[in-house]
């Protein structure tokens, strides 16, 4: 019995963290979010692809690494901690899983190999399946897709896009197809990109098994939620580390502020809230990989609970930094914002909890 990450997982995780520390420090992140470092951002992306980030879950027969979701979860923690300014949850987790579980043989061959070779990347627009805002709506008929997807993740510069209708039928379109109109959104978190996509009678390749089964959409969304939870976990840990470190340096009233009990207790509360989230997220990923019966509920719990905890940590860690925390200078806000967007993506906590209640037939 062993409950935790394996040596391999930790090793890989540390490599990603080290890479981000070297290549993507706060100055770089700042430039990227100001739109002034597209090339550097591309280099960071390429560097992480060299480590294998795009093909973690893709089976070896399609040129991937054939690893499990727990492995990807470990990586996602590092991306959250280091503000990894790259696509991940959508393109490299949800999209391959949808194809692995929903595609026929030909589709798997067609897509997964190219994805592992990085000659194809897919953005994911499932928001309307989970909860359509602003009357957005996707309809798929006769291998054509029409409608509007409001919050497509990892879609900027993606060669392909993936959508689902309300029934969980998933299909893939080429981003350059005629009838597609793309609008860039501006979310608070600018380390990642989000698009609105309008579609009018666009040719779509429907993943064959998804016309009769929800397995692919369920798997894809469960995994996406666990991965986003892991991202927030990493981001929250970064915030706690920063708050504790700052509290040991900053002096007021001739004392370091970390000696004030109000500050100590805020830090202790953050740690006490976050620590069980590690176990929860890993456990959820483990269930995803090994016990499908528990997997959906665990994914809901992981995403909703970590979202709540991270939100509080975003607030408290900023407070520990005082006015500095509120400045752009200190950069605390990057993690605050990343957490904020993770929280809403693939279902805000209330939405997910209602889903968790239904999964249990309440």
């Amino acid at each position: 019995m062993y409950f935790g990450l394996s040596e391999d997982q930790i090793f890989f995780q540390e490599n990603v963290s080290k890479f981000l520390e070297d290549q993507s420090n706060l100055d770089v992140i700042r430039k990227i979010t100001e739109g002034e470092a597209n090339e550097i951002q591309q280099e960071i992306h390429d560097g992480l692809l060299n480590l294998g980030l795009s093909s973690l879950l893709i089976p070896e027969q399609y040129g991937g690494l054939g690893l499990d979701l727990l492995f990807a979860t470990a990586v996602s923690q590092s991306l959250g901690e280091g503000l990894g300014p790259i696509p991940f949850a959508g393109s490299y987790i949800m999209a391959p899983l949808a194809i692995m579980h929903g595609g026929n043989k030909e589709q798997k061959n067609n897509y997964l190999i190219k994805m592992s070779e990085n000659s194809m990347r897919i953005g994911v627009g499932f928001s309307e399946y989970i909860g359509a805002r602003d009357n957005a709506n996707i309809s798929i008929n006769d291998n054509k897709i029409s409608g509007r997807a409001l919050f497509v993740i990892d879609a900027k510069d993606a060669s392909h896009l993936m959508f689902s209708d309300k029934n969980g039928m998933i299909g893939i379109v080429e981003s350059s197809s005629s009838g597609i109109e793309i609008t860039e959104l501006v979310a608070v978190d600018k380390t990642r990109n989000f698009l609105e996509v309008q579609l009018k009678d666009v040719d779509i390749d429907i993943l064959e098994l998804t016309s009769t089964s929800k397995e692919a959409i369920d798997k894809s969304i469960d995994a996406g939620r666990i991965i986003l939870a892991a991202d927030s976990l990493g981001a929250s840990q970064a915030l706690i580390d920063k708050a504790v470190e700052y509290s040991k340096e900053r002096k007021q009233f001739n004392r370091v502020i970390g000696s004030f009990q109000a500050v100590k207790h805020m830090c202790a509360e953050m740690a006490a809230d976050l620590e069980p989230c590690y176990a929860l997220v890993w456990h959820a990923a483990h269930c995803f990989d090994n016990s499908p019966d528990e997997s959906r509920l665990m994914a809901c719990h992981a995403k909703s609970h970590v979202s709540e905890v991270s939100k509080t940590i975003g607030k408290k860690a900023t407070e520990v930094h005082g006015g500095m925390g509120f400045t752009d200078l200190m950069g605390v806000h990057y993690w605050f914002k990343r957490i904020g967007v993770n929280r809403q993506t693939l279902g805000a906590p209330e939405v997910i909890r209602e889903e968790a209640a239904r999964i249990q037939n309440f």
Partner: protein
Amino acid sequence: MDLNYGSQYEDFKIEVQDFCKEWHGINFSDAAKTPMSQNFESNGKTIKRSEWQSILIEKGYTARSVPKEYGGYGGESDIIKNRIIATEFSNAKIPSAMGGQGIDMLVPTLLELGTEEQKKQYIKPTLRGEMIWCQGYSEPNAGSDLASLQTKGELIDGNWVINGQKIWTSTAQFSQMMFCLVRTEPDAQKHAGISYILIPMDTPGLEIRPLVDMTLKPGFNEVFFTDVTVPEGNIIGKRGEGWAVANATLGHERGALTDPNATMNRVNSLINRMKKETIDGKRLIDIPVYRDKLIAIQAKVTAFQSNSLRVLSSKINKGQDTKIAGMIQKLVGTELRHELEGFAVDIMGELGTLYEDSPNLRDGGSWQFLYMYYLGLIIGGGTSQIQKNIISERGLGMPREPKVQGN
């Protein structure tokens, strides 16, 4: 990640499951009538609590690693087997072995630091439930700041003569013995002046006054000492080492206060209740606000359960660092339980406040009772604030509390 206990435990698990089947529905002829945290279905055999305890020791389902000569089972210490026993018992709704401060705190202390004679004398009757212990640590002026305790012990003619007062002493009224912290070295520095002494509760000069607690159930007491005299040999460890001896067992206490599986059982009881209970004819489980809070709590308890698996894992796998995961358990576990029980009271509204033997009582009044009881546990055994001091100082390396002069 590997959540299988391994094939060598499969047989053991089946053995325990069979045992649980055999004893399903067991009832005690002498059970205390307090609202229990679990609802046992009592439709089976009726035996005495102490008989049940003997059966469990014989099977190795409790006191597993306590040597036979001291009345235990005499097996290897095996955390996973303990876990299997706890899980299967709780799944089968079979009452677990006796616990309490004697079994959970004193026995491990004696095994670690007691003399041979002390082990022989005390462990066996304690395990069998024949000797109940209370913990005499806190004093009116020494709660969180326990090391400032002033109850005085003087060695006179080969006896400890003890004077002073303890307070909040749980179960003193039922106990045969007390393990007690006493200041025996008045000139030594605060922590170095304390000794750990065992006191029979029927010693002349020892007076117990019940202290009614919030739940109005028999809980804790004040204990007064007037020239209470016990033999010199009733000390554990050396003179002045009592602080270290006590700290060896505080860890055991904190672990025992917050069982995540019991908490999850309460979540499941709550779900059942919400399916039955209605407001304006509508089932509580169908009301969105309640559903939302229920699932939020269920998620937290799930996280807490997973956290305890991680802590368990670190005990088996050397080198796995789960320092903070272990340190937060008392704080998180008691706060979470209080929140859960309080939420149940909330959703039942006025009915949730019914108590004792009121008409229309739900689940024996256990929600209201445990809601208050867990507030006590948030305070007892080191308050939540003290836990936060510990987490921030020892877990996060933040500065220690400043020392005030004269302390």
